[in-house]
């Protein structure tokens, strides 16, 4: 899958961003929290690539550091909602009696717009990274449950599941060894999309002022602070904005690539189309 350029570039970007943000304190020339009142709202220059903010802090450094929170929140939410969604989805899809109970609860949760639900939860719990993660997990895992459940409903009617039952295999083993491996691809794809969505949601919450405490740099917090200086110092809001766009775009492309890689029909079509080219390459080499 990574052999395709379309998938490799976003993948490399995310890896690079991850490495850059965790090692930032070693290689950044100026600490991103260092304030210099003589350098307030400076335009981008060779010294400050992305310019400076209203406290004279380096925006490039801030943007890189802010990725920590975004990636942390995105990844943790994706992981937690995948685990919760997979477990509930497997149970709901496999056991008919529990299905109606679980799915009615999930439907109820889905009835709230996810951002509004997160907003309400953060307002109730107070804004901190942990609370944001909890709130976003609650608003995203119902989606995962629905995806997993519908895949399970398909897979559980395939004969090998019936065959396992007739050979006396017990339900936990059927779920973990027969059903889960065969519904893994939609789970991974959906997980990637949740990653992207929660980065966006975290930025939105911080922008609205109910997210991470303002002292911690996040893309959303930066955008919120930059609001007032929009006309005076557009670079203040443009750069964090660009980073949000690129990161979310990269994750979405990666999710699309994963879906294509897992979809046997799409694969078949592309292979058939590509065959003549591949042969030429082989002859040439």
């Amino acid at each position, binding site marked *: 899958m990574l052999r395709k350029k379309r998938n490799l570039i976003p993948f490399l970007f995310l890896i690079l961003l991850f490495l850059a943000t965790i090692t930032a304190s070693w290689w950044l020339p100026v600490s991103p929290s260092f304030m210099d009142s003589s350098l307030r709202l400076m335009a981008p220059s060779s010294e400050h690539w992305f310019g400076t903010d209203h406290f004279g802090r380096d925006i490039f450094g801030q943007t890189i550091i802010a990725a920590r929170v975004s990636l942390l929140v995105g990844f943790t939410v994706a992981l937690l909602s995948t685990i919760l969604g997979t477990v509930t989805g497997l149970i709901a899809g496999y056991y008919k009696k529990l299905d109606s109970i679980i799915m009615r609860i999930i439907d109820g949760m889905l009835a709230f717009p996810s951002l509004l639900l997160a907003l309400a939860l953060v307002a109730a719990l107070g804004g901190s990274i942990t609370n944001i993660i909890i709130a976003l997990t609650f608003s995203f895992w119902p989606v995962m449950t629905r995806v997993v459940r519908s895949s399970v409903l398909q897979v559980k009617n395939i*004969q090998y599941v019936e065959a396992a039952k007739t050979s*006396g295999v017990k339900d936990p083993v059927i779920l973990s060894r027969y059903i889960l491996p065969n519904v893994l691809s939609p789970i991974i794809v959906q997980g990637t999309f949740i990653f992207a969505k929660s980065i966006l949601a975290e930025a939105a919450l911080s922008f609205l002022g109910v997210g991470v405490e303002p002292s911690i740099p996040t893309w959303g917090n930066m955008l919120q602070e930059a609001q007032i200086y929009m006309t005076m110092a557009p670079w203040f809001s443009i750069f964090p904005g660009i980073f949000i766009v690129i990161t979310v775009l990269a994750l979405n492309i990666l999710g699309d690539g994963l879906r294509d890689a897992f979809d046997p029909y799409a694969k078949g079509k592309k292979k058939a189309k590509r065959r003549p080219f591949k042969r030429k390459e082989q002859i040439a080499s």
Partner: protein
Amino acid sequence: MSESLLEIRDLKMHFPMKQGVFQRTKNEVKAVNGVSFTVNKGETLGIVGESGCGKSTLARTIVGLLKPTSGDILFEGESILQYNAKEFHRLRRNIQMVYQDPFTSLNPRMRAGDIISAPLKAYNQTDNLKNRVLELMDLVGLKAEDYHKLPHQFSGGQRQRIGIARALALNPKLIILDEPVSALDVSVQAQVINLLEDLQEELGLTYLFIAHDLSVIRHISDKVGVMYLGKMMELSESESLYKNARHPYTNALLSAIPIPSSAREKKRERIVLTGELPSPSEPPSGCVFHTRCPFATEFCKGNVPAFDVDEDNSPGHYVSCFYPMDNKREEFARQ
């Protein structure tokens, strides 16, 4: 000499058809509608019928995947429908099943060795697991190096061998073969049937062999039952059924088998049934076959024929027809 292993008594499996917002039961699909037969130890009972006549439903009911609407299933003289979950789990090791489609009946993410050892693990027979699996693979004609292969690396016939090995793993007494060769090429069909015969001889197995083709079953069965619309039409020793079929439906099926001799094949007279197979949710009144039977009379429309035997002329040959055709095939064919 022979002891009954499996006995089915007036088994009925009706599926409710739910419709509308309130899921009211509007109608029932009578997939299996009163079937009785006995399978003796070491015997093979073949069951034949068109698609949709309830063969597979019958098989799934016997292995306990479906709970029958009424009737009884006796295994070794004990009714298995009263069993609780634990007793049923114990019973299951004695009744195993081989499925029709070797492509969907094996988990694509498990290796051949794991597929065959799954039933053993389910019953905690894990001593010498690998040796037992290799022994089973050898028994069905798979090589030891196939142990770590995934299902898609095998051909259809080999996959069916894996399915057979899985069914044999627990040393079952009865194996239900649900069209085990229908999805295979003709040349491979013969191999698999021969394998099944060898295994039966070696391990003393009892088979319930389901097929939609009388010619496939002829070779392997001791007794043959013919099903139509969830009912048994005819049941007898295989010899008697092929030589002297008494039910018009059986005769029609037999006349559809090609003869491997060009001279005789040209002369073969076919009985082509007219009309469609009626829906099992609205089976015809009286004899279910009367809508397509060339012999049907007004009497057949109103009365249900008993599943009966004529002990004087053809002992052990059950038929459910008011006008069984004894030695009047030629006459029938002319019509």
